[in-house]
Every structure is written in C-alpha cells, then in structure tokens.
C-alpha cells in the first residue's frame, strides 16, 4: 500500500530540486530545441523525409520531443538513484514509513513533470520558427503519446540507477542515452543508416517511441508493432528495475 501523503511530500521536494538544477533543466528542456533548430535548418523548407511524406521539420519535431522526454526521465532517474543509494539517503528513507516504491515513484513523477515542458518547448519552437502546422487533436495526441511513452525510459533509468554505482553510472547512462537516441533514429532518420544498422534500429525502443508520434503526424493510428515493441521493453525495464530494487533492499 502506498502512503500517498508521504510520497506526495517527497515528489514535491524532488521537483523543487529538479527545477533548481539549471544544468539538468538546460539539457532536458532547452537542449533538444537547440538541436532541433540546428538539424532542421540544414534541410530545405519543403524537403521531405523518404517514405514518410513528412517535411524534415515535422519529422524532426517528434524525434527531438521524444529525445527531450528521454533525457529528462533517463538522466533524472539513473544518476540520482545511483548517487543516493551510495550516499545513504535511500537507507535513511527506509527508516521512515515511506514505502520503498514511493521513492522510485517520486523520482519518476518528478522526472515526468520536467519531461512535459521539454516536449512542449520543442513543439512551440517547431511551430514558431519552422511553421510546422498540425490539427489540434494531433498536437494533443502527440503530447500525450510522447509523454506516456517516456515511462518506458523512466523504468530504464531506475534499472540503471540500481545496477550501476559510483563512477560507472554516468558513462553507462551516456552510452545507453546516446546509443538509443542515435541508433533509434532520434537525431537523424534511421532510413539514412546502412542496412545493418537499420535492422538493429527497428527493434530499439526509441525507434518505436518516435514512430508512435510520427504515425500521429501522418494522421494514422500508431502501428501495433511499435506499441508491442514498447510494451515488451516496458515490461523488461520495469521488471528489471523491480528485481534490482528488491536485491538492493536485501543487501543494504
């Protein structure tokens, strides 16, 4: 059973702390928009991405919004959890009535609050500077899908936070973060990759994640394969995180 008021108090403080951390805010909220402007400016305004029928600006908007959400939830969870496991804050919290899951929940919830503006800022920049136009339902659905999909990576962040520690957590997070972002086609369309990388990319969660948003831009229903891929990864990451969490609790 979750002790909700206790969890809420922790979420509130986690949020205060996130919003105070300028570096974290820069990388999760502003950085994706910068990259978006740089990448989309290198293409002509009417240029389309093969096979999708979407302009480069529209195509990249979903990629970078997904990238921003990924940054917020993955970075927010993995490094902090690893650090707080190490400095003993997790132990101190276990001496309070807060259930252990409340800690993970608070971390994920506060990361999710930061990921929402990182999605919206990319949308606003795309609409204002790159004249991306979509129907109202598409904007709303995009926000909802990208936000909800980021939970997959929040779970991955928790898992990394419990498996890595000390100096290892940052490199591991970075490798996973850039690996998933680039190979999954968030930075450039995976259609530009060599064949072998394209085959790998197809099965990455980030690829499926961006594909959900792209389907909405194309006014289509998201593909079942993408939903299935994300669902499998979510079960994998969340299950792994739960298992690692329990292992850590027994050891601590």
């Amino acid at each position, binding site marked *: 059973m979750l*002790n909700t008021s206790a969890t809420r*108090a922790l979420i509130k403080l986690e949020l*205060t702390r996130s919003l105070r951390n300028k570096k974290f805010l820069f990388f999760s909220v502003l950085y994706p928009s910068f990259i978006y402007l740089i990448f989309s400016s290198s293409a002509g305004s009417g240029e389309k991405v093969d096979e999708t029928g979407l302009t480069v600006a529209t195509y990249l908007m979903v990629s970078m919004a997904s990238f921003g959400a990924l940054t917020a939830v993955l970075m927010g969870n993995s490094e902090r959890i690893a650090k707080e496991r190490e400095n003993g*804050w997790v*132990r*101190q919290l276990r*001496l309070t009535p*807060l259930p252990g899951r409340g800690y993970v929940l608070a971390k994920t919830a506060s990361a999710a609050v930061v990921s929402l503006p990182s999605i919206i800022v990319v949308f606003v920049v795309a609409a204002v500077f790159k004249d991306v136009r979509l129907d109202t339902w598409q904007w709303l659905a995009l926000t909802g899908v990208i936000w909800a999909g980021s939970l997959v990576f929040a779970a991955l962040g928790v898992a990394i936070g419990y498996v890595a520690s000390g100096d290892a957590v940052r490199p591991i997070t970075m490798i996973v973060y850039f690996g998933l972002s680039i190979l999954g086609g968030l930075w450039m369309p995976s259609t530009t990759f060599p064949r072998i990388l394209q085959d790998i990319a197809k099965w990455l969660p980030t690829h499926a994640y961006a594909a959900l948003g792209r389907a909405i831009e194309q006014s289509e229903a998201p593909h079942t394969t993408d939903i299935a891929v994300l669902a499998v990864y979510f079960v994998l990451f969340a299950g792994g995180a739960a298992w690692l969490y329990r292992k850590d609790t027994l050891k601590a």
Partner: protein
Amino acid sequence: MTTTAAPATTTPVVGFDQVTKTYGSVRAVDGLSLRLYPGETVALLGPNGAGKSTTLDLLLGLKHPDSGTVGVFGTSPREAIVAGRVGAMLQSGGLMDEVTVAELVKLACSLHPKPYKAADVLARAGITQIADRKVNKLSGGQAQRVRFALATAGDSDLIVLDEPTTGMDVSARQAFWATMREQADQGRTVLFATHYLEEADAIADRVLVLHRGRLLADGTAAEIKARAGARRISFDLEGSIEEAALRDLPFLTSFDVSGQTVRIQSSDADATVHALYGLGVYPRNLEVAGLGLEQAFVAITEAEEAKQSC
C-alpha cells in the same frame, strides 16, 4: 551478567532472541539475546567489528537475521517504523542534497505519522541558524545535527543513534547530549552506539558491551567497571627499580614501568599495596583509583580475547 530489573509484564521496547547474522564466514552477530525496556537510555559499546552496526541494522529492519527473531514494541521492526514509533540516525544514513536544511526537515516531518512542527524540530536540533543552507554545504558536525533532526521529526518512542557525535567538537557534543537528555526525560527509550566511552559513562543508565557479535556485559557503567574487577595503582620509585620483585606482587593484572613511574592494575589493590610496602621500598605519589569505563571495557574485551585464544 546483570540485567536491569523490569516488571515482567512490560512489553520490551526491543527484543532480540537468539539472533544470528552471518556474512560469508564471519558471524557479525552471534546468538544475541537482549531486551530494552521503556525509558532506558542504553549505550552500545564495542570495538570496531564487534557487530554494533549490524545489530542496529537488524533492529531497524534494514537487515534480516539468519536465525532468531527481532521484535520492536512486540511487532516487526518495519511495522514499528511505519507506526512512527522509531526515529533513527545512522552513520551510513545520507542526506538528500541540493535542498536546504529546512526543506529536508520539513520532508522528514511530512513522512512521520506523528510529526512535530518543522520549526520546533530545527530549534531542538540547534540548526535554526543554518536552516536556509544547502545540505551539501554543511560541515560534518552540522550534518550530524541535521541527521538528528530527521531522527526526531516526530513523537517516536524509541530513538536509535549510531555514533551520533562523530565530527562534533567538544562543545557541540555537550549541547547534543543535553538535547538527547531532554528526549530521554520525556520517557523515550534511547539506544546509542558510541566510540566515546565517557559519553556512555555520563549519559547511559545501562551499558551493553558487544564483542564479536556477542553480549559480553550488560549493566550500569558502575557495574561494568566493577566487573572488570581491577583498580589502577601508580607510584614513583627512586633509584633502580627491581622489576622482577614488583612483578611478583600479588593480584596483578597488568604491569608497566616508564622512567621512575610504575603503573599496575590489581584485582585486590589493598593486598597489592600492602605487599608493596613489604618489599621495603618507599613509593612516592601513590595513587589508587578505580578503572574508568574505558579501561574496564578494554579489560573485559581483553579477558575475552585471552579466553578464546586458550
């Protein structure tokens, strides 16, 4: 072994029953049984590796015993914590960083089922002046006070403190124990582990000596000192010292000569001093004193070591 008398009907605050905890081949806690009763202030003493931290971890439900049972207020440690009956500060307990002291204490209050007002908690821990400071910018002693504030954020019945005054200077330590006494005077049970034996001597009304995971002594500080059974005798001698004759003095438990000063310990100081005069020497600056808790502690643990090595 002396145990503090308590009515049989009282539910012990803490009950360890034949508790064993092993890491690999090391028995950190070895068949430990003990009871703490309401209102006691208890010091947990032991050399490094005696099992103090493991004992506290077991008591707080951070670790689970391999065998035996641990009860807190008649329930499991976790249940007692969820009910808000236990406040604890661990050496290994960290703090959330990048937040202010006040924010962290406020969080601790929100997490406690029977919270005090954050302002009161800050004042009692003596950290009102540093309330706006970031937690990661504190000195060691200040961080200890913040940990103490977290442990006393609510109306808990048992307070557990692991080496609470580490990193504090003497005046901070005195202030800390004054605060701690207030907690005890309100009828709380306080259990603290410490390296500073004078703290145990001055503050605890019961001392537990832990050695190799077992309870070696359990009683008041005075009883522990008596149990060590020895008194210190020191005196100066002029001229050459006949060591062999001095070593043959009756009831000696330790012997040390440095320069003209002889320091010995005896299990029967009266007989030893009498025999000393019988040697025909003229001891000057003769002092006979009881052992401090520290020496008693060393004597008890050394005796145990000797027993185990034979």
